[in-house]
């Protein structure tokens, strides 16, 4: 069996494969299709093809794992809670656990009403996630819960990183700083780390509270060439 995955770097693509296929890293081989290195500082996505040893069918081990790791009934309670809220909102949906980590689980909402469930800029998805986490925090064996629908969160992450690179290029050209719109800590961290190793560009958060704005500014002026960062 082979399957293709994409990520910002090789590690991320591999992690995605591990997550989706529910396999350990040593159970498949990785072939890099596109190393994503094009342009001076702009990194594209890395594309990999995964070759799974033997033709193992995935659903079976998945179910097995679910029974093993959900001893306290934590996952079922979270699923029931989310499904009940969706039902009472008037948007029937099915909730599935898509990945499990030591500290968190990821759940996906499958529904005909995804657009409303996600909301403008993921507003409704964030609200659902917040409530589920407050509820989950009171349960035994509590973990953080990441709520997604239609892969919105992954797509949104990619979009933010593209925005970061695009804005950084504009800032390099114009040498004028740019202020991005307010973002939550997770989103800001994505921007900071995406631009962390780009020369001449500096990122800083401005403002108060949970939703701060990232300012991307140029810092090469004056000392370019003279003072190469080593």
């Amino acid at each position, binding site marked *: 069996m082979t399957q293709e995955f994409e990520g910002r770097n090789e590690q991320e693509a591999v992690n995605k494969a591990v997550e989706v296929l529910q396999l350990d890293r040593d159970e498949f081989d990785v072939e890099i299709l596109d190393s994503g290195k094009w342009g001076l500082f702009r990194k594209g996505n890395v594309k990999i093809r995964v070759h799974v040893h033997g033709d193992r069918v995935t659903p079976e081990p998945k179910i097995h794992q679910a029974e093993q790791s959900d001893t306290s009934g934590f996952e079922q309670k979270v699923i029931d*809670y989310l499904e*009940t*809220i969706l039902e*009472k*909102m*008037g*948007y029937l949906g099915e909730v599935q656990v898509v990945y499990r980590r030591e500290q968190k689980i990821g759940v996906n909402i499958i529904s005909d009403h995804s657009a*409303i*469930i996600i*909301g403008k800029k993921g*507003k*409704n998805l*964030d*609200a*659902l996630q*917040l*409530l589920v986490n*407050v*509820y989950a925090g009171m349960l035994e064996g509590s973990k953080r819960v990441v709520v997604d629908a239609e892969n919105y969160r992954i797509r949104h992450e990619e979009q933010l990183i593209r925005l970061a690179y695009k804005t950084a290029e504009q800032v390099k050209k114009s040498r004028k700083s740019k202020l991005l719109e307010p973002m939550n800590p997770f989103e800001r961290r994505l921007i900071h780390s995406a631009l962390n190793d780009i020369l001449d560009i500096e990122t800083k958060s401005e403002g108060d*509270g*949970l939703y701060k704005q990232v300012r991307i500014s140029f810092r090469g002026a004056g000392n370019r060439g003279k003072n190469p960062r080593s």
Partner: protein
Amino acid sequence: MEKDLVEYIAKSLVDDPAGVVVNVIEGEKSTILELKVSPDDIGKVIGKQGRIAKAVRTILSASATKSGKRVVLEILD
């Protein structure tokens, strides 16, 4: 219905579910939901800087888009 939704969410957050009461005031264009909880539980439905209250309102308005009617949530103390 929105009343059920608020009731369910509020009860899931508080220590004293029996203390949760939701009153519905139907207006022409909007519905007002008044949420009452036990005094000790008010913080639980509001949250730090109103984060939980805000999330509940967001979910309510998402739910209300079906009917096109505005739904307002008031938390009474």
